[in-house]
């Protein structure tokens, strides 16, 4: 690709990003205007929500970069739980999915079971998790792992099975030892599918984090239900929108990692 077209392309990308964010800003402005017009307690102005949010997050001393207690007592613990449980689930899910996918018969017996478990609404299992692990972080982690595990397992199985005959033959004819097989052939080939599963699971992890916290009474989930029952609607709106921001940020971060790891994929390169 020549320099001029590359520059033009970059320009176009910047341009479209600018339009995207302009539309986003316009939506926020529209919200403000509608809220002023509606003048309802349930539907506060955007500026009010942002101001409340700034109050909550940036009330700390200067040495902590102004970050308030809410960041350290609410946001970070919530995130740590969600991400920790998600990582645990990824570890278990990829291992389990690889084992199931490599076996010629295991999925015959476990496929139906896994589709069933995946259709179970994790929310309704909360009473059981509460009895098993008590109310606390353990319960939250268990709930998140249970609900994020199945998509990772199923995607991994699918990815592991996508290794085609020619690649198997090639690897064998090149003398690849069995102990390197999974690391060198199977997992790289399965990686795109695994990432698809991981991304889906990440959004489920955030969802279950909120559920577990509403039920268990901690973190962001607790703030959501508290602000609702104490009629602090601007702050309630702020937490809802913060979840959107966090979800967007985490998803973008995972996408960046994916681009790095799956840089070899033709569709992901810049000049594809």
């Amino acid at each position, binding site marked *: 690709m020549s320099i001029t077209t590359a520059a033009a392309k970059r320009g176009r990308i910047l341009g479209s990003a600018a339009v995207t964010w302009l539309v986003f800003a316009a939506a926020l402005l529209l919200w403000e205007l509608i809220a002023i017009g509606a003048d309802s307690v349930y539907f506060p102005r955007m500026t009010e929500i942002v101001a409340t949010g700034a109050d909550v997050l940036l009330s700390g001393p200067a040495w902590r970069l102004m970050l308030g207690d809410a960041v350290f007592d609410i946001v970070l613990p919530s995130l740590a739980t969600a991400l920790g449980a998600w990582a645990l689930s990824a570890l278990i899910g990829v291992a389990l999915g690889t084992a199931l996918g490599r076996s010629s018969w295991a999925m015959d017996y476990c496929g139906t079971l896994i589709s069933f478990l995946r259709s179970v609404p994790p929310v309704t299992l909360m009473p059981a998790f509460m009895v*098993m692990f008590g109310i606390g972080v353990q319960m939250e982690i268990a709930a998140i792992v249970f609900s994020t595990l199945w998509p990772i397992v199923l995607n991994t199985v699918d990815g592991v099975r996508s290794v085609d005959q020619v690649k198997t033959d090639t690897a064998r004819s090149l003398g690849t030892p069995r102990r390197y097989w999974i690391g060198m052939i199977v997992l790289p080939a399965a990686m795109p599918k695994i990432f698809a599963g991981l991304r889906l699971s990440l959004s489920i992890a955030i969802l279950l984090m909120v559920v577990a916290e509403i039920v268990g009474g901690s973190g962001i989930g607790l703030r959501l239900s508290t602000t609702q029952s104490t009629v602090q609607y601007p702050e309630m709106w702020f937490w*809802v929108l913060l979840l959107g921001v966090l979800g967007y940020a985490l998803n973008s971060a995972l996408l960046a990692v994916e681009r790095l790891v799956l840089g070899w994929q033709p569709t992901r390169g810049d000049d594809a």
Partner: protein
Amino acid sequence: MRTFAKGLTGLLGFFLLWEITVQAGVLPDYWVPPASEVATTFVELLGDREFLLGVVATLLAWLIALGVAIGIGVPAGLLLGSVPALQSASRALIEFLRPIPAVALIPLVMVTIGSGPDAKITLAVYAAVWPILFNTIYAFGEIDPVLLDSARATGANRRQALTWVALPHAAPFIFTGVRVAASIALIAVISVEYIAASEVGLGRYILEGGMNNGHLDQVMAGTVLAGLAGWAINSALVGSGKRLFRWADTEERATR
């Protein structure tokens, strides 16, 4: 049929393992009631008129939610998929809205709409619309230009090519989106019933079981029923999808 039997064997094996581990004391029975106890409760429930009405309420809410989600998701997807400018303009907005979990909106919906059937339908629509929207956009964005060119070469005009080539091409993808949305909507309806304490429904029933501590059999029976319902809906849709779109190899293309 043989494979169906294998799948069933796996499922039964799971319930058997559950029974044995609880009976043998590996898992304490105050954690999970044994599978047989849950099964008894399950059978009793199927004869309980009030419970069944609750299930009907849940399914009705699910059906309405799915219908509304399709009604919003497909046209919006068609519009965004065929007008790239619109798609890129709305991207940040969509990417921001999508990760907000439906559950986080429960407090919001409760104060604005209340906790009646409207609330659970609204939230289920919100949760279910995304897979439909994205699959529709994707189906139209990824259509092979050669396919459209071939259609034009046979003398079809732009509108005809869209109706006879682009739509059939997109249909299996949209269907897949609907299938995923169906599972999500069911889980969402039950979850909202549970968290927002609706007056009726499967989720409400499970909530009651959870609140009267020691009624875990009620919780588990309701959960198993929910799981079976979700699984049955999904399997049925997979089956009809295969029948409807024999020619399509969605898997191959969708995973590229």
